């Protein structure tokens, strides 16, 4: 699949090679700097994520990619810089508030709720859509039951979409790694996010699992029109999936553009020289 060359710094919609129209930017990071004590994790980085696109963040280990995702979903608060989400400057919010704004994510080290089943995990993804009062829940009457049923139906569609019917009621702790990753994606999808952050969705997977996961990511993007930002090490996957790529190294941005552009970028090539990546 070859992608059309798209200008990297474009504020407005553009059209990809396969004819998809990418909307305007939903998330703009402006001059983000993040420090831990004296350590600078992210240094003055700016980039944007457009509606409907798959945006990849790549870079060698320790480049600050995960920190970047953590900034986007409010787990870390940058010392400097602005975050503009859906056209408005975002004030520092707690992670759960950001979740309610429609940003969902998966984690590099699976962060599923081990004591719960696949279904329950996916249902936790629906929590942002559930607001029945305690009393109704206590009596399991009226809205509580209705809401549970509706959201169960939604969760079941995710289960169907991810083809994990057979592990529906298995506690996730017992699942193999690849399936856990899939369940985690399901949990994020259940939130019906407008922006989905994936932190190394294919880490530790075999070829077949990677193919499945790539297919799911593309399908999510296509079917639900979800904007996706992902971190991934596997370059071939990134180049196939992503519409545009940000390259980070030592907390700085060293490249930004379509996969082709990035591939030819000298700074990127230098950064990756000698860096072994799988």
């Amino acid at each position: 699949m070859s992608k059309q060359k798209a200008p990297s710094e474009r504020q407005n919609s553009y059209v990809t090679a396969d004819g998809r129209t990418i909307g305007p930017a939903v998330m703009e990071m402006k001059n983000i700097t993040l420090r831990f004590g004296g350590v600078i994790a992210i240094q003055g980085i700016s980039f944007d994520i457009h509606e409907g696109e798959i945006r990849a963040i790549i870079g060698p280990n320790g480049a600050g990619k995960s920190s970047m995702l953590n900034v986007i979903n409010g787990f870390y608060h940058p010392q400097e810089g602005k975050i503009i989400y859906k056209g408005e400057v975002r004030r520092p919010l707690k992670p759960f508030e950001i979740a309610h704004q429609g940003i969902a994510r998966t984690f590099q080290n699976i962060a599923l709720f081990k004591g719960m089943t696949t279904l329950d995990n996916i249902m936790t993804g629906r929590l942002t859509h559930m607001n029945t009062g305690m009393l109704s829940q206590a009596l399991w009457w009226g809205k509580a039951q209705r809401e549970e049923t509706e959201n169960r139906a939604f969760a079941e569609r995710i289960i169907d979409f991810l083809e994990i019917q057979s592990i529906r009621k298995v506690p996730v702790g017992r699942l193999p790694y690849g399936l856990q990753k899939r369940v985690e994606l399901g949990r994020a999808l259940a939130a019906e996010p407008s922006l989905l952050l994936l932190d190394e969705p294919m880490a530790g997977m075999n070829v077949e699992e990677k193919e499945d996961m790539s297919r799911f990511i593309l399908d999510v993007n296509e079917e639900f029109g979800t904007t996706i930002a992902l971190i991934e090490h596997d370059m071939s996957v990134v180049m196939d999936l992503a519409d545009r790529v940000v390259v980070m190294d030592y907390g700085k941005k060293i490249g930004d553009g379509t996969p082709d552009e990035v591939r030819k970028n000298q700074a990127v090539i230098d950064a990756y020289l000698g860096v072994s990546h799988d």
Partner: protein
Amino acid sequence: MLYREVGEFKTSYQSDQQTFPITSDRLVVLSLIFIAFFVIPFFITEYMASAIVLPFLIFGIAALGLNILTGYCGQVSLGSGGFMAVGAYSCYKIMTSFPDLNIFFCVILSGLVTGVVGLAFGLPSLRIKGFYLAVSTLAAQFFLVWAFTKFPWFFNFSASGQITANERLMFDIPVSGANVAAPVAYLICLIFFVSLAFIARNLTRGSLGRKWMAIRDMDIAAEIIGVNPLTAKLSAFCISSIYIGISGALLFCLYFGAVEAGDAFGIDKSFLILFMIIIGGLGSIFGSIAGAAFLVAMPVILKNIMVDFLAWPVDLASHFEFLIIGALIVFILIVEPHGFAMLWRIIKEKLRLWPFPH
């Protein structure tokens, strides 16, 4: 072995999500409830009631409450005794302030008061985790008990510092105080127990329960997927305290009749309830109930065996009781660290798979 589940298919989410999806389970539980309500009251003796059944039901409620907090929400608390005291003293205050209020309302209101107190003592949980939290809940335990013995307002300035449950009538039958007939006390406790177990089940299977469990399993991830840790933890503290408060109120007005905070709601109660849920199984309604039954009945049975049956001197029997309970706790934890609930789950699984081993 006992299960015949073939043909039990669910055509709606409601039926798939019900508490006992297997028909035979449902029937057994329903018939147990039926027996509990309509058969046992005719046979219950005062001894059975006060030695085993009432404490079982009352501590069962407390165990349900603590399990919500500790088993479902993952916040270990050693303050249950203190919260029971809040329940008992608020019940006393409410009963003496509103002499005509129905006993059920008194107990429920006491629970609510305890809920508010629990909310306050739950606040540190937003910053403190794990063992650290457990130890800081001791503050609730000791402070509350101290307060109840210290400030005479709580015991209506009575010289003795004791609070005494006065008599209430419902349909001309005493429903609190000393003259409550065993079946009446039993039925009142049973009503609370069954409805609170029902509510606990409902709360833990819905969105609130999932929030709690998410916080328990991985609090950071929970927050990132949109769980507000503040409301999740505090709601667990609050609801758990309501349960424990209700149990304290029942313990006071239907079981002891008269209590003093230091005597009746000491740290040993906190440990007892914690034991119940651990032996029973964290994060399990059944576990709370089984744990309560075990820890209430076992000492009585041991004592009856050793003293009445084997005619041992009471002090030896009492030493042995400690020894055996301690050894049993260790033994159960070794055999199944996740308690009776897991044991039962395994047995049930075995029965369902019978004759296959797995």
